[in-house]
Every structure is written in C-alpha cells, then in structure tokens.
C-alpha cells in the first residue's frame, strides 16, 4: 500500500473491481453445487425451485454409488500407504546424494508431473492389459501411487531441506544405526511434512480422473470415474449431493494441511 499516495484510491478502484470479480469467479461456482444438491427438482435448475434431501438419499440408497465410494476410499488409503514410504525414501536419497545424482534422480521422480496424464493413462492401461490386471485394486493403487510419489517427494524434500542433517550424523557417531538415527532423530522432526505428504497422496488418488477412466472400472469403479460418466451421459443432482460431500471433505483436508504447515513454521 506504500505506493498508493502516487495514485488516488478512486483512480485505482477499477483494479479492485477487476480483482474482486476474478476472485468471485474463482470461488462462487463451487458454492453453486451445494444448493443444487438440496434441490427437489431433477433438472439442473439454479436457483432450485424447492428443497429436499432426495438426492442424498438417492446416493445413500444406490448400491453402485456406495460401491464406488468404498472403492475410492480403499484406493486412496492404500495409495497413501504405498506412496508415502516410497516417496520418503526417494526424498531422503535425493537430499543426501551428491548434487549431480540428486538432480538426475529428482528429474526422473518428477516425470509423472510432466508427462501428459492421458499418455500416462494409456501407457499404464497397455501394461495392465498385457498383464491382465485391469480393474484390480492393487493395479489401481500402483497407478495412483505413480502419480502421488512425485508430490510426496516434493513435500518431504521441503521438510528435509529445513532439517539439519548433522543431527542424524551426531546420532550415528554416538552409535545409532543409520536406520535407527533416521527413525528416532530425523523422522520425528520432519513428521509434519510426512503427514502432509500422506494427505496429498490420499487426495491425489481420490481426485484422479483420467488414469482411473482406463484402469479403475468393473467392481472397482472409483467415484471419479462414475461421476465422469454420470456427468457425460445423464446428469442428475445425485452428483451434486456427492460433490457437496467432496467439497466439505476437501475443505477439511485443506484446513488440516494449513494447520500442519502453521505448526511446522512455528
């Protein structure tokens, strides 16, 4: 605000208006879904003509949607359990290795973020067809873990950067094994970033659409895949009910991460 005395507030008011409009554009659509989920009409009328809970009961009573919810939560939990240790190991190695190797390894680990997801999807689909494991839970989990590992690695690496590795060396010089030093000295101090990374891994799996469209069907049709098909073929406010649940869950997860970050930075 220091430079405001050069231009009067009123001459800058257009800037405030543009920014306000932009922020509203970003935030409002999300809250449109919530009233529609309580609509009593089967059409996507906004604002809704009347209110009811019928779309929530439709969601709860639908065996298909319930199976998808279960499949999604299972996949997300297992992805978190697989991707977090693998990503932590990779981050530790990248943090400790000589810069030349570290840079190379980091570049390779980040590949899933760079390669377009549609290409990853058909590549993984191709392998799974050859192995005859399409639609099986373990194969869904490994596909999601592939996408989650770079995010886990980035997050944990940020935690390790602010940790003084000399502490681990002190522990080792006092007789701790390498593994012991990591678990009793390093891990407790980077714990917030590891928890954060685990939540990211969970959310990555829960959010994933494109790869799931190819490899997560049949009995293990995940929520995002069923939602995508519903939105493409026959839109009902059932999706709004699910979306509202997802919005609330996402905001809780985001709040959790914010809380964790604040505690770390203290």
């Amino acid at each position, binding site marked *: 605000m*220091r430079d405001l005395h*050069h*231009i009067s507030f009123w001459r800058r008011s257009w800037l405030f208006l*543009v*920014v306000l409009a*932009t*922020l509203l554009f*970003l*935030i409002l*659509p*999300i809250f*449109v*879904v919530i009233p529609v989920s309580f609509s009593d009409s089967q059409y996507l009328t*906004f*604002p809704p003509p009347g209110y009811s809970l019928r779309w929530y009961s439709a969601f709860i009573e639908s065996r298909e949607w319930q199976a998808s919810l279960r499949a999604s939560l299972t996949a997300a939990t297992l992805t978190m359990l697989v991707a977090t240790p*693998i990503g932590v*190991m990779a981050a*530790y*190695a990248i*943090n*400790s*290795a*000589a810069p030349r*190797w*570290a840079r190379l*390894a980091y570049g390779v*680990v*980040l590949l899933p*973020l*760079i*390669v*377009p*997801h*549609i*290409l*990853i*999807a*058909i590549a*993984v*689909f*191709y*392998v799974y067809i050859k192995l005859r494991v399409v639609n099986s839970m373990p194969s869904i989990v490994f596909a999601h*873990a*592939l996408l989650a*590992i770079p995010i886990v690695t980035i997050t944990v690496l940020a935690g390790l950067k602010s940790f003084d*590795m000399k502490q681990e*060396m002190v522990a*080792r*010089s006092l007789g701790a094994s390498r593994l012991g030093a990591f678990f009793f000295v390093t891990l407790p101090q980077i714990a917030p970033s590891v928890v954060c990374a685990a939540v990211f891994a969970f959310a990555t799996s829960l*959010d994933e*659409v*494109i790869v799931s469209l190819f490899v997560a069907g049949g009995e293990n049709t995940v929520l*995002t895949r069923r939602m*995508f098909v519903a*939105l*493409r073929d026959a*839109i009902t406010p059932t*999706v*709004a009910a699910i*979306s509202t649940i997802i919005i609330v869950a996402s905001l809780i997860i985001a709040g959790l991460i914010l809380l964790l970050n604040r505690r770390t930075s203290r």
Partner: protein
Amino acid sequence: MSTAGSLIPPRTQQHQAAEPAAPNAVALARQGRRDRLLVLSLLLPAGALLLALLIIPVGWLFYLSLIEGGEYSLVHYERIWTMRSYQNILWTTVKISVIVTVICAVVGYPTAYLLAQLPGPLAAVGLAMVMIPFWISILVRTYAWLILLGARGPIVPFLQQVGLTDNPFLLLYNETGTIIGMVHVMLPFFILPLYANLRSFDWNLMHAAASMGAPPTSAFFRVFLPMSLAGIWAGVVLVFVQSIGFYVTPALLGGGRVTMVSMKIASNIQEYFDWGAASALGVVLLLIASSILILAARLIGGGQLWGTTR
C-alpha cells in the same frame, strides 16, 4: 549439505591429502562408497515403479507408434500431418489453449499485482480464494459450470429475457463453455507463481522511479512490468502446457462438439483399439509439452517453474 548423508568421504579425502599412507584410508573409502550406494538404493522402489509403469510403457507406445501392419512405418505420424480431422483437432487444441492462456494472463496479472500489495490479512483472504478451487475436484467444478452455463442456469435465461440471445446452449456444449471451464481450472496456476514472484519485488524501486519524475503509469510499464516478466512466463508456460493436455473439461463442457488431442487419444483406444494412432498422438503431445518446458526452464530457470507446481 550435499554430502551431509555421508560424513565419512570428505574426511577421507582430507586424510589422503594430509597423509596419503593413513592405514585406514582404504577401509574408510570403501565404507564411504558403501554408504553412498546404500543411500542411492533408497531410490529403487520409486525407480522400479517409474520404470514399470511409465518409462518402459511409454517407450513401448513410442515403438507402437512406428508400427503399422507388422512393419515399420510413419503412417501414424503422416495421418496427423495430412488428415483434415487430425489437423482440426490440433488446431482446436492450440487455439483453445492460447485463448485460455491469454485470458488467464490478462485476468490473473491484476489479481496477483493487487494481492502482492495488500496488507497481510487481506492478502491471505484473497490467496485463500485463489487456492480453494485448487483443492476441489475438477469434476465438482465442471459440474458447477454445467449448472451455471446451462439452459436452466442463472445466466442464459437472463440473456434470453433481455433479448441478447435465443440460443439456450449459448454458453454450454461448445468452445465457449470449454474455455470458461478451463480458465477456472488454470487461473490459480497463473496467479500463484506470479504472486510468489511479485511478493519479492522491492517496492523502493517504484519510489525511486517516482522520485526521478516518472509518472505512475510509466513507472509501472518501465520498472514493474519488466521485473515481473519471469513470473508471467512461468504462469504462461504452466497454463499452456497443461491446457494442451486437457481432457475432463472439454469432454464434459464441450458436449462432444469440441475435440482436443487428449480426447482423440482416448477415443482411439476406447473405440477403435488403435494403439499406433493413439501413441503417435501421445508422442506428439509429449514432445510439444516437454520442449516448451525444457525451453522455459532454460530461459527463466527451473526453480521458478518447478518450485511452484503443486
């Protein structure tokens, strides 16, 4: 910090420099090597997964893209160059991506510019409004646009009443709807890196410019804007590279009338089981995306780019 994981090797080197005949130098060096190998072996699980599910399969698809009827052929790539339908898809993809990128830059710049100057709490509220959509599933956001832009949403009936249009699908199931939905997804990717860049701007430079007699507008264009170019480019690259690979938004808001490259790749597999054609298109997409990223990393520095992706 780099050799932090293995304390022993540097000490060994010092030892060797001082007294080359130290009796335990060989053993220490060997242990140092073992130590470094141990650390590198922690990359094995991640490397194995990447190799099995990404590197080898993409290589395999690349090979498939060069095969037709059992022998080597460039027919899949030729088709992309010569067939009208493929050219239309490429053109649509590039056109939509450019429009989305330009809108993101034009709308995102003032937002990042103002947020970077606002006092702490206000900036935090603004940033939260930018970040929250980031956190919400793309399907939920696309659904919201299906409601808002649809024939029974709040916008189109209003336009019809005022008499500006008589088309109930003015904003949905076409390129307009796709672009609106994509801008909503991509805008945070433009604002956040730019905000990070602007936040570190030294506002004293503006005072200096003013004290030298520069009017505010020319101080902005000749001092502020040039210094924020790196942030703008980071945002432009992030938005464009992701836009050309978009699938969900055009597939749902385009309503079958908008075909982007990713959708053609998917339909080549799901409808025609034509792995060669899908792979060739995938390779082209990968080449375009990676060459832009590599070029950008060279020009504006990798940290600027990578540090800001989620």
